[in-house]
């Protein structure tokens, strides 16, 4: 198998792009796709300060590497979620990555902010682990980005993540979520702009990028994500992709064209949380502060 571009031995076949690539050209393609995505959606400019949400997994570390190589001013933030074993190991990968490249990584312990890590929270909180964790992550990542004076928060969501989210939303006809699903969520006031520069890259391309670039990342899955619906949706999409290459990319590209047809939900007036001062749609304290209050009393959330 030869590289479509240089005819040297290829290591990967990308059927959806009709390409066979050598290591060098796989790396070049991944970086080019990210650079084009950032420009196409006007995610941020070279002058703006970017904060990358780093988990120790392949996507976020690849994103940080790519943004740095493209010349963007990108720091990282790692949230120590307090998931026994998993959090320690993923933190080690994140810190080793940053240290080897001389990059600035902020580490924030959820337990220090909330009074309990995710494991502790799940002992008495109702709700699905990924949903609770999502609430905590969204709040803390935004707060760290806002307080740190960053213009934009970048996450490592890739094509498979976005296609699975889209499929999940379509299956339940979640019109509000469909109207909001977009690679750029604009910032406003204390809400920092959020972007997904890996949107058009498959998980396989990102994993290949890490292996070729020598980026060491955590392979293991979060123990609370085992059996998660998002993983089942990804498997379904990969079976379709195998039979009909380009399914995932076509799904996302097609959606971006018709997305405007979905009615956005009524705009919600945001007010400052009386406890922490961060924006919330709730009357009274925000969801994070309510969780924190319940943790402090040991009451069910």
């Amino acid at each position: 198998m030869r590289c479509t571009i240089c005819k040297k031995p290829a290591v990967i076949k990308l059927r959806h792009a009709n390409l066979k690539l050598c290591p060098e050209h796989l790396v070049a393609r991944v970086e080019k796709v990210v650079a084009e995505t950032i420009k196409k959606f006007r995610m941020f400019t070279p002058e703006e300060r970017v904060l990358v949400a780093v988990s120790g997994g392949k996507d976020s570390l690849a994103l940080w590497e790519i943004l740095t190589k493209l010349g963007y001013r990108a720091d990282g933030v790692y949230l120590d979620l307090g998931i026994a074993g998993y959090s320690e190991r993923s933190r080690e990968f994140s810190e080793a990555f940053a240290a080897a490249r001389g990059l600035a990584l902020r580490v924030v312990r959820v337990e220090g902010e909330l009074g309990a890590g995710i494991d502790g929270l799940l002992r008495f909180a109702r709700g699905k682990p990924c949903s609770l964790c999502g609430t905590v992550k969204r709040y803390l990542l935004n707060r760290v980005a806002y307080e740190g004076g960053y213009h934009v928060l970048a996450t490592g969501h890739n094509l498979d993540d976005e296609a699975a989210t889209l499929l999940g939303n379509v299956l339940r006809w979640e019109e509000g979520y469909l109207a909001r699903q977009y690679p750029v969520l604009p910032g406003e006031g204390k809400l920092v702009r959020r972007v997904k520069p890996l949107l058009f890259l498959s998980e396989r391309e990102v994993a290949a990028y890490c292996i070729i670039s020598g980026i060491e990342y955590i392979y293991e899955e979060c123990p609370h994500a085992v059996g998660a619906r998002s993983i089942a949706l990804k498997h379904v999409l990969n079976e379709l992709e195998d039979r009909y290459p380009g399914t995932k990319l076509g799904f996302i590209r097609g959606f971006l064209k018709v997305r405007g047809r979905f009615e956005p939900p009524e705009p919600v007036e945001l007010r400052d949380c009386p406890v922490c001062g961060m924006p919330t749609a709730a009357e009274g304290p925000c969801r994070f502060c309510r969780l924190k209050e319940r943790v402090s009393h040991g009451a069910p959330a």
Partner: protein
Amino acid sequence: MATLKHRDKTYTVKPGATLERALRELGIIPETVLPVKEGKILPPDHRLEEDEEVELVDVISGG
């Protein structure tokens, strides 16, 4: 025999088969893994050799 390691499973495969064919016969969708040996990705047309060990790195993550 050649060995393919995928998560906590180990498969033995007859040497001579290409990786793509071996994956198909094991029911693994090639899109979901990257075959890696000594830190390098192996192409789908790589022919497995006697006693060769290949790790199948899962590319799906979620939650």
